[in-house]
């Protein structure tokens, strides 16, 4: 069977995932609710994952897709830790607004 990329073209995948990535970045930059920030980060990571898959098809080898599994696992672990921290913050602070975290400065 012939490669989907012959039809669509790898560039588009790249542009798409770059776009996604940037959306993630901006989300991280401009949202103050920790949960949403997490999600934005997830978007970034998934944008990359998407690209991985695209590339792996492009190169016709599986490594890329394997890597995606790695990264997903890692991301999950990360988020788990992140949420844990968030919980304790919520206990102490009663809010999950990252803008309130300004005790350490100077």
């Amino acid at each position, binding site marked *: 069977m012939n490669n989907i990329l012959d039809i669509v073209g790898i560039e588009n995948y*790249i542009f798409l995932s770059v776009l996604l990535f940037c959306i993630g970045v901006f989300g991280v930059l401009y949202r103050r609710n920790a949960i949403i920030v997490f999600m934005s980060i997830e978007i970034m990571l998934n944008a990359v994952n998407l*690209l991985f898959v695209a590339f792996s098809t492009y190169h016709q080898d599986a490594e890329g897709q394997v*890597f995606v599994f790695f990264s997903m696992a890692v991301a999950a672990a990360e988020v788990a*830790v992140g949420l844990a*921290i968030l919980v304790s913050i919520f206990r102490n602070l009663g809010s999950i607004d990252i803008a309130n975290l300004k005790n350490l400065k100077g």
Partner: protein
Amino acid sequence: MQTLIAISALGVFCLLAEIFNLRKALVPVTIVGLLAILGITLNLWSIDSSIDEQYKSMIVFDKFSAGFSSLFIILTIFLIALSHDVYKDHQTKISDFITIKVFLLAGAVAMVSFSNLSMFFIGIEILSIALYILAASKRLDLKSNEAGMKYFLMGSFASGIILFGICLIYGATGYFDVAEIYALSQGAGLPIWFPIGITLMIIGMLFKIAAVPFHFWAPDVYEGSPAITTALMSTLAKVVAMATLYKLLSGLTVGLTYNFEIIIVIVSIASMTVGNIMALRQKNVKRMLAFSGISHAGFMLMALLSLTNAASTLLYYTSAYALAGMASFAVIIYVTKNKDNEDIINFNGLGKTNPLLAAVLTASLLSMAGIPIFSGFFAKFMLFTQTIKAEYLVVVIAGVINSIISVGYYFKLILAMYTKEATEEKQATPFVYYAVGVISIVLNIIIGLYPSLVTNLIN
């Protein structure tokens, strides 16, 4: 490779120890285990830089990785030794902390011995996640939480960037295997996103070593985290990141392009200057050392300007820096143990109440400031010579000026210890602080007097 396996095994053992109620014995056992592993690692010099067949294209355990791994192990030993006293109040969790540290070490070793980008990614994530946890490990302390959160957010952001970088490289070359990529990178005709990928990865690492302008997290996180975690970050984590960055660049590319060297030069100078200048007016010691760490990162970046032969110098600098840092943190942890903050005032009159620790701290600060016979001096000197050879005199001049500035704040601490009157009388000091402080500073001086001990490990 044995090292990595052994470390992971040790980590697992620690977890089991929790189950079997071996908490008391945990610390000593772990230390012994690590010493054994150190032995194994050092033993590897008989087999010189050979890729381990069994894990083809995943792990390469050559002199570079062996050298740095041993440094990491030593540092971890110190940290674990300290944790015995630090965590004696919550014995229940001690095994967790130790386990995390051990796994963190595993991640670190993985980072300096990867031969495949996936390995590198996993390593760095193990390290980071462990650090997030440790940073936030004081659950009830808001500062600690904040530190953890900040570190987590920015860290995972950086991970995203790194991942993107890896992805682009993979896209450009079709390989995760370092050797393959290197081979390809020599030939022309790689798509534009290959250099972008490299750049993004480097930026990610620059974040990890807290180089300007990616340094903002460092002071806050250092200040907020528990002292022992700060110690870990400023010694182990920084060194790991630096080593990895070097390995990445030397592994993936045929030397840096001129433009990229310019960037390194700028970042290096900026880091030195910003770090030192900012440190001048800090009251909190941990924060001060965070900034000093930033400036040291700037120094270490010099090594990247002569990629081909700076490995030994880098190892030397990092060990000098890390040992001095470890010594100073041993003292800092002791002094600030029962304090609510780590301000310099707490060090007043230490010269009288506890001359030995004061001497240790003084020595370590002098080493960081780069005063002779302490290894810090030779480290700086080697960097300078190498950078002059690479014809980046301007960086050297900046470095010199910065070392002058740095004396300013290092000596604030010394002055406090020797000229101010003590606020409280001497309290009992657990032996371990003396042990860690003295041993590490002695090691520092020894490699100062015989740099070849370290420099000969690599090259």
